[in-house]
């Protein structure tokens, strides 16, 4: 009995995910439709949702395999960069975004370090006075 419940539960999650994806795909097509002055039929949006869902399955299995190969259980940006290496334009775009994200991380770290340093120096000043 509980096996069937599990299967049903998994199916419901899958449906919810597809519905969420369907909404996002619809929004994106609306955006592009306005830009290019076209209208997307409902079947196209359904078909694109299916394809994206399938594509995400492939992406997930590849990313998991890469991380496991590197003896990690958490997928990181190196895994994603490896995934897209074949298509040059996509690879460059992903690399650009990844570099931007790492840059903003190091800025955050510098900022919090500076704030910490300032806090410590003000503490020492008040102690002296």
């Amino acid at each position: 009995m509980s096996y069937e419940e599990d299967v049903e539960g998994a199916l419901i999650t899958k449906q919810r995910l597809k519905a969420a994806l369907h909404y996002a795909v619809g929004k994106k097509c609306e955006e592009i439709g306005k830009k290019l002055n076209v209208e997307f039929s409902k079947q196209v949006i359904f078909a694109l949702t299916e394809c994206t869902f399938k594509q995400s399955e492939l992406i997930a299995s590849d990313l998991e395999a890469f991380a496991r190969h590197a003896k990690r259980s958490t997928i990181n940006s190196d895994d994603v960069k490896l995934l897209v290496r074949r298509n040059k334009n996509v690879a460059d775009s992903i690399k650009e975004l990844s570099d931007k994200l790492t840059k903003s991380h190091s800025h955050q770290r510098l900022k919090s370090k500076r704030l910490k340093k300032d806090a410590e120096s003000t503490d020492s000043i008040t102690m002296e006075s």
Partner: protein
Amino acid sequence: MEHEKLTLRLDTVERLLQQNFTDSKSKVNADAQKLVSYLLNIFISEAAGRAAQLAQLESTSNKVEVEHFEKILAQLLLDFS
């Protein structure tokens, strides 16, 4: 690249990926989530853009139908494999 808004929510992306993990312990870090979301965004935009372009070339109406989508699908999947 700046103007491409991330239409996909990050937790949707995480759950989408986790559905297909064989190991229950596998997780995705925050940066990788953003990258995958961006990647899926590119996929959807490319598909829609190519289909729209084909529809405009082939038909007189400005409606993108499944036949247009089907025609661009093969090359799209090769480009993203």
